[in-house]
């Protein structure tokens, strides 16, 4: 039960921390000053949510939230690879922001029904703040998709890079069986993925953006929980060309882009592990 809760909340927290870190890299570089402030504020919100999740873990395990955020080795992070990708350009970050916050809304709605009362309460609280993120993301996608053709083309390219990787936000979690048995999540990750992809494709359709850029994706590459609770790659090698891209994050397998982010994010903590903030 305890390890199931820690597994679930660590995945949620790491997603928030890592995407928040990537968002924050736009501070000082966003297209205009107003957006710089807005996007930086969203980045802070996401990192704040990570801190709230880590505190929940700290109550169960006794580790400190700072240690959870900054004191782990790269393979111990459970964020989806989607969150750790470099920002590339503004359209990429916008599309990722939209996909992430749409997925997060689906996930938080489910978490509000969690049997763990503090997790359910936290989800309700966060969802209020996430409403603004969704409004912001929708406003941007709508305007860029209706604007000049260059912006639209860039959105479509970014969707091509992002959409399939976003699905990995709902890859199976460590101890997923136990998570479901204990009703920490009311339904499985793959059920949530179905809800997310239905909603995302329908909303993209409303924006007039192609939602089916990855209809031909091979969905058979999945990570399955073995009897020991570890994740093993099933069917196909994750690196094979036909596998859905960006999988493995939930099992601690990250890209080189993550290693660079981790180096930078944890450098101060590694130099001064006892420092108090």
């Amino acid at each position, binding site marked *: 039960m305890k390890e199931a809760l820690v597994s679930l909340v660590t995945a949620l927290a790491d997603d928030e921390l890592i995407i928040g870190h990537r968002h924050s890299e736009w501070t000082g570089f966003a297209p205009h000053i*107003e957006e710089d*402030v807005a996007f930086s*504020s*969203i980045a802070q919100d996401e990192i704040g949510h990570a801190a709230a999740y880590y505190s929940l873990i700290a109550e169960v395990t006794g580790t400190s939230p700072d240690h959870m955020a900054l004191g782990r080795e790269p393979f111990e992070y459970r964020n989806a690879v989607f969150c750790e990708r470099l920002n590339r350009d503004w359209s990429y970050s916008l599309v990722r922001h939209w996909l992430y916050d749409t997925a997060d809304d689906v996930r938080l709605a489910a978490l509000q029904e969690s049997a763990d009362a503090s997790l359910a309460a936290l989800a309700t609280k966060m969802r209020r703040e996430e409403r*603004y993120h969704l409004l912001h993301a929708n406003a941007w996608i709508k305007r860029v998709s209706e604007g000049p053709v260059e912006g639209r083309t860039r959105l479509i390219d970014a969707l091509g890079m992002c959409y399939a990787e976003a699905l990995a936000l709902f890859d199976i979690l460590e101890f997923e069986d136990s998570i479901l048995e204990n009703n920490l999540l009311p339904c499985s990750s793959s059920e949530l993925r179905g809800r997310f992809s239905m909603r995302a494709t329908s909303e993209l359709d409303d924006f007039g953006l192609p939602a089916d850029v990855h209809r031909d994706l091979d969905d058979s590459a999945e990570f399955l929980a073995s009897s020991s609770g570890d994740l093993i790659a099933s069917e196909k090698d994750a690196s094979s060309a036909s596998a859905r891209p960006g999988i493995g994050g939930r099992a601690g397998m990250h890209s080189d882009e993550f290693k660079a982010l981790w180096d930078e994010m944890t450098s101060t903590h590694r130099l001064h592990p006892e420092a108090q903030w």
Partner: protein
Amino acid sequence: MEVYEIFRRSGHKNPFEHCGAVIAPDPEMALLLGKECFLRRREGEHLWAVRRSDIHALEDESVLEIAADKSYRFASDYRDVVDKREAARRRVASMSWGGAS
């Protein structure tokens, strides 16, 4: 892109007050950006965005100048009324209206 002036209200009984401006493509975006720029610390509970071009300003500020003595338009000019009223009351009280002496 246009300039939108942002107004916020700190409580429902208070007037909206100007707090800054944002550059945005339309009103919805102006509100979204204005919220983060001027209300992210909960400085208010309501927000307006007004297109700057919709604001009509005086062309000649000199019309606001007051040339002659208009002190009668200011409450401060009537401050001695209280003293005058008190003096009048005292006067009335001290008056004798006949009667036995």
